């Protein structure tokens, strides 16, 4: 019980320490990538719950990220001022759901308020995750992997084919997301530190929720489903319902991250919906150790930061591919649980067997 809070406290301390370290060494610009890494981490811990605890693979999580990001981006950039006279629009404008602002060229435009767009994005994500989840989660193994991959591909090709979503260019000039007076999610350097803390606050809260969940009745049920679904069913665990709820929850994590990262970057492009992004999320969950939220969190922060800073150069995707293979070959339990001695022992044993 207390260990849980010790971990969370350690996380908070680490977040603050990293910020102080960048300030002390004059590398504040690292915070931009660290903030983005924070949002990606939010997607990845959500996926970790689904993969590591409920045992369901999803190769389409970039799709949910994109649904969140694109919904928010479209709603906060589409100009409704032409329909100002329409009763429905004026009612929405009066209630504060629509908000007027100046666009890039100084013209006055009427768009959906970011908070309303955020709620909209969440609702759409939940509905889509529900509609996809009900049939998809009946599948297992290869079929589940392919079905979720298919879902991700559909989102990607729809985004790429629709001019409303900016096709290959994506959507830019997404406005800042006002949180509190004086605090907004935006890429401006004056708000850099605050945004860093906000992103990682989201991660911390998300983590706290997940940890509480996996230590509850629900968490035990999920692990029993992972272990043996039929046995779990025999014990009275409603496997279908638990899997669906977990799927929707992890989709919501991805969508929340998508919304905020879109506002932080001021735009979103189709690459966020690509299969490679989904595979990358799966890779990081695998590296962190399928059933280890903390391992996943650490690996996600490190790998995303390195990748976003461009340390992998043109080998970015290749690095994630290699990591994926290496982890699955040598240490399916994750890098942090890598047991060198038993690994070497296993090599020797299999060699002997082959020799005999």
């Amino acid at each position, binding site marked *: 019980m207390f260990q849980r809070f010790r971990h969370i406290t350690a996380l908070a301390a680490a977040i603050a320490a990293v910020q102080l370290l960048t300030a002390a060494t004059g590398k504040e610009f690292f915070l931009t990538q660290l903030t983005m890494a924070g949002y990606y981490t939010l997607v990845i811990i959500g996926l970790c719950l689904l993969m590591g605890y409920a045992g369901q693979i999803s190769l389409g999580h970039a799709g949910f990220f994109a649904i969140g990001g694109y919904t928010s981006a479209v709603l906060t950039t589409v100009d409704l001022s032409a329909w100002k006279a329409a009763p429905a629009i004026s009612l929405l404008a009066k209630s504060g759901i629509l908000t007027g602002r100046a666009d890039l060229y100084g013209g006055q435009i009427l768009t959906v308020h970011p908070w309303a767009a955020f709620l909209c994005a969440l609702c759409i994500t939940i509905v889509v995750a529900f509609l996809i989840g009900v049939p*998809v989660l009946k*599948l297992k193994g*290869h*079929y589940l992997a*392919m*079905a979720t991959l*298919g879902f991700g591909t559909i989102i990607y090709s729809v985004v*790429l084919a629709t001019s409303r979503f900016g096709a290959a260019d994506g959507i830019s000039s997404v406005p800042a997301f006002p949180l509190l007076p004086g605090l907004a999610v935006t890429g401006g350097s004056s708000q850099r530190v605050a945004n860093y803390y906000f992103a990682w606050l989201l991660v911390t809260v998300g983590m706290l929720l997940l940890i509480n969940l996996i230590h509850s009745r629900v968490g035990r049920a999920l692990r029993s489903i992972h272990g043996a679904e039929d046995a779990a069913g025999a014990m009275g665990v409603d496997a279908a319902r638990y899997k669906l709820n977990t799927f929707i929850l992890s989709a919501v994590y991805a969508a929340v991250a998508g919304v905020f990262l879109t506002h932080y970057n001021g735009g979103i492009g189709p690459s966020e919906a690509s299969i490679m992004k989904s595979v990358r999320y799966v890779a990081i969950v695998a590296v962190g150790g399928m059933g280890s939220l903390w391992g996943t969190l650490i690996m996600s922060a490190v790998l995303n930061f390195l990748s976003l800073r461009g340390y992998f150069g043109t080998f970015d995707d*290749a690095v994630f591919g290699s990591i994926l293979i290496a982890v699955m070959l040598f240490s399916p339990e994750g890098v942090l649980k890598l047991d060198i001695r038993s690994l070497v022992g296993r090599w020797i044993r299999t060699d002997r067997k082959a020799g005999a």
Partner: protein
Amino acid sequence: MFLELFFQYLVAGLTYGTIYAVVGIGFNIIYNTTGIINFAQGEFVMLGGMTAVSLHAFLPLPLAIAGAVLVTMAVGGLIEMLFIRWLVKPSVLRMIIITIGVSILIREGALHLWGEGIRSLPYFTGNEVSAIEIGGVRVSPQVLWALGVAAIVVLLLNVFFHYTMLGREMRACASNRDAAALCGIPTRNMVTLSFVVSAGIGALAGCVVSPITQTQYGIGAGLAIKGFTVAILGGLGNSMAAVGAGFILGILESFSIWVMPTAYKDAISITILLAMLFARPSGLFGNSEAARLKEF
């Protein structure tokens, strides 16, 4: 006019259907011997096409294609030996992730080796504009090449699996691995062989359609999904049914252009895949009773 257009779409559908069918057969060969869905299947097609284009710079076309097929077969065998052979009873999730990782590595390797450019082999006979008239429909000779090669591949595979010792050993390995091992069949080598064969026919397909569909480093992922759709449509593990399913998918896709923007073409096949997975995972021609017994 309407009828002409109809046949033109039909021919286009058949051409794409051929390549989907061959990728689907590749899935089935590996699935049968190992129970693995090889997510890198589409990469074999890309690798075959790309290698052939490179070899064609200094070799005549038939030799370049033969070389490309051999290189891809070697790659297929190497993948199995490096990443799959020595795993002891790996879980399905682990295998999925490993083959996805392999597909990424091949794709990135191709990107660094050949760049982002789109390449293609020359037409085997004639050129882009030459066409044969069949009952008022203009058909590129390359389409006939593709159909012919696919037919020969299917025929040869049938002969191989039914009338050669090696093919029979592979089938034995597919239907019961332990029993096959007890009969003295080296099951591990059979698995390697299945990767080699599957890579080889993928590469051949990649060469034959390269003049029509072009080859680029990233075409593999899309083809893998199409091929898997076909394998599921026909019933997983059933190579002959995959041919029929390939044509069905190719034709459906081709006619979808008639009513929908081209950009949504990919979404069509995936929608079919999803619908199929939910409604009838045993495939159009499969036995649902038998499918229920399989481990997915």
